[in-house]
């Protein structure tokens, strides 16, 4: 399977008469773009903004982040099974507007999984989106059934984001990319002996699928991950849009759709393939609530990895708390199968740092990368502009906020939990946890 991603490096985004890309500047026709958003009659209000690193802007409640891209060949859509009929991705050519994102923000109402992004100030560095220009869709919907629910599917806004990102992405469909990345991984049984002699490695992302009701979980080709068992994926499928982020987990522990298609763990493993390792591919796992389901998935991951001939594995858990059990079980099952395993996730050590960092511990999990502490407290100064509604952080049950955490002057005290995807379990995290 061979995938070419044609990159266009966006330095700035502006609004203009038509939507086009030229010499580092992405110009968006606001009216046309909003028409795409309003294709869904459930969208009741929508407006577009542009934010840049250094702007005194706070975005909250942020629901999702997408990379603006389009399929050129080898498929019709970058969101198969979601905004387009289900179809394979991972081969052919995809064009992508790089170094920027589309952020989707609730105009008023937040939910458990939503987060906050600062474009300047001390917390600018807490999410990768603070250091890139972003097109921002701020909207509201008529989804009355969940308006005052803490858990929201956020379906209309998430789907609007997918449509919009593809609409903007299409402006580079016929242009010559500034760079072409080629991602290719030959079938596991057709590899040269010098590759086969390298240690064989699988990547095991555990996507967040613990909401028993459907519509909230991460999607695989549009399929709710709560209803799947561990399976094998070619890494290109993920780089080309097979996984869509869900709408459930406390925000800092989430992996946004932007991060799935830019997943730095997959990219590193692909680059090392044939040099230091033989990258066998992705064993995609879910995360479960019921103990028997946790055991079944851990067992199946280990069996697939073993059947593929893996010597090593990297497990990444999208979440914290209860799913730590799935994380540790899977690591232990892999180790028991003789597969040397590294784990990557965040910790929950409490505001004072003294709580047990993971719900489950096992000394066989002896190689762990830590990407943050969900309960770390942050005080943020006021920002001149808020896109969305600041009070949502205190009012709507965002995971790192609470009643009273937003002060009258616009300053905020909150847990890391509420920063948008800030523990970057995809592998972008520049944080760790240390003992004091």
């Amino acid at each position, binding site marked *: 399977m061979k995938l070419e991603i044609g990159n266009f490096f966006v330095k700035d985004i502006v609004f203009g008469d038509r939507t086009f890309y030229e010499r580092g500047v992405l110009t968006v026709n606001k009216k046309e773009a909003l028409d795409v958003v309003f294709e869904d009659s459930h969208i009741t209000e929508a407006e577009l903004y542009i934010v840049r690193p250094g702007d005194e802007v706070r975005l909250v409640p942020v629901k999702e982040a997408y990379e603006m891209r389009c399929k050129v060949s080898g498929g019709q859509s970058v969101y198969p099974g979601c905004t387009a009929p289900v179809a394979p991705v991972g081969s052919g050519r995809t064009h992508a507007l790089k170094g920027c994102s589309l952020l989707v923000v609730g105009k008023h109402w937040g939910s458990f999984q939503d987060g906050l992004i600062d474009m300047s100030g001390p917390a600018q560095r807490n999410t990768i989106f603070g250091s890139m220009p972003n097109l921002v869709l701020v909207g509201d919907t008529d989804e009355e059934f969940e308006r005052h629910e803490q858990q929201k599917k956020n379906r209309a806004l998430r789907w609007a984001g997918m449509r919009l990102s593809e609409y903007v992405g299409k402006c580079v469909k016929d242009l010559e990319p500034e760079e072409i990345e080629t991602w290719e991984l030959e079938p596991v049984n057709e590899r040269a002996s010098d590759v086969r002699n390298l240690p064989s490695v699988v990547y095991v992302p555990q996507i967040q699928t613990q909401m028993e009701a459907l519509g909230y979980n991460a999607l695989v080709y549009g399929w709710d991950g709560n209803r799947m068992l561990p399976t094998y994926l070619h890494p290109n499928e993920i780089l080309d849009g097979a996984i869509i982020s869900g709408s459930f987990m406390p925000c800092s522990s989430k992996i946004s759709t932007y991060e799935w298609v830019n997943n730095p763990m997959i990219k590193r*493993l692909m680059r090392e393939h044939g040099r230091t390792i033989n990258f066998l591919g992705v064993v995609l796992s879910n995360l479960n609530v019921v103990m028997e389901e946790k055991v079944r998935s851990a067992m199946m991951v280990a069996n697939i990895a073993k059947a593929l001939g893996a010597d090593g594995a990297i497990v990444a858990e999208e979440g914290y708390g209860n799913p730590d059990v799935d994380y540790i079980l899977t690591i232990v099952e892999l180790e028991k199968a003789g597969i040397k395993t590294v784990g990557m996730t965040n910790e929950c050590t409490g505001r004072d740092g003294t709580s047990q960092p993971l719900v489950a*511990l096992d000394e066989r999990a002896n*190689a762990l990368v*830590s990407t943050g502490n969900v309960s770390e407290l942050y005080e943020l100064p006021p920002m001149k502009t808020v896109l969305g509604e600041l009070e949502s952080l205190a009012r709507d049950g965002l995971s790192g906020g609470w009643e009273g955490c937003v002060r009258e002057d616009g300053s905020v005290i909150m847990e890391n939990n509420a920063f948008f995807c800030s523990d*970057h379990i995809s592998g972008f995290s520049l944080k*760790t*946890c*240390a003992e*004091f």
Partner: protein
Amino acid sequence: MLKAVHYINQFFGQVGGEESADFEPVLQEGPVGPGLLLNEAMKEAKVTHTVICGDNFMASHPEEAVARILKMLEGLKFDVFLAGPAFNAGRYGVACGTICKAVKEKFGVPVITSMNEENPAVEMFKSNMYIFKGGRRATYMKQDVEKMAVFADKIARGDKLLPASMEGYFPRGIRHEVFLEDLGLEPKCAADRAFEMLLKKLKGEPYETELPIPKQERVPIAPAVKDLRKVKIALVTSGGIVPKDNPDRIQSCSATKWGAYDISKLDRLMAPDFKTIHAGYDPEQANKNPNVVLPLDAIRQYQKEGRIGEVDDHYYVTVGTGTTQAEAARMGREIAQRLKERNVGAVVLTAT
């Protein structure tokens, strides 16, 4: 300039050696012994007063010693409290830890001491204070004092404090997130860190996990007692059931003490003569009926029915919340030793 108070024992206080170990605590103006070195090394703080106390006095009258020292300090204005270095001297280490903990709790100032890793007081007190990693004996005095002084200066300047491994003190069990760049480290993303760790693990090379998991000692379950009528049974609990005045001052969490209390004349524990001091569960039911945690009523019933023989005339108790594994194991060994001396053949261990 911050004001520091320094605690030392009779030997470093130049009172005398082992023969003076019962020396009662005194407060002196200015630095003494190691305090002079501290004052040379510290740029932002000065030792204004020194407390000298005999190691034996502290060991045999800890409550009195602590109370007297805290009283002496009441009138003083000070910003930081230093003790030792205590090297590998066990009694001195426990004394430094005991007084540092008490001073921190009463005055809320930072407390700093130094000990060798083999000093048993490290395990007892490391979660409560900064204990710097020191040498085995007093020949390391200068180096150990230097480390304490550098850290006291950092506190005085309000510098951002780095993780334990970088500052050089024993980790206190407090984990926080940090940006690698703030530690002066290369801001390597998690994906690269994970890949490099995996490669080392695959090659069998040493690597450092970012989240060390404490080694769990699994204790095999003992074989069943063949005849309960022929062994002496003891009741042990980590549920914090103590006589109402908690005579041994067992701590409500992070306990370092255990107690043994006479039950030879009792058929059941009565409230309010017994109560729980455990801070990790709702005490209401246990305070109403302490037997729900320490089942003396049930064991006496069995005794009456002839199903069991003898019951030890004491029960044994500590508090199992926030207690480190190492501390729990030490107390477990001590209690087990006592049980063996008393010919106990089986234990009912109740947790909460």
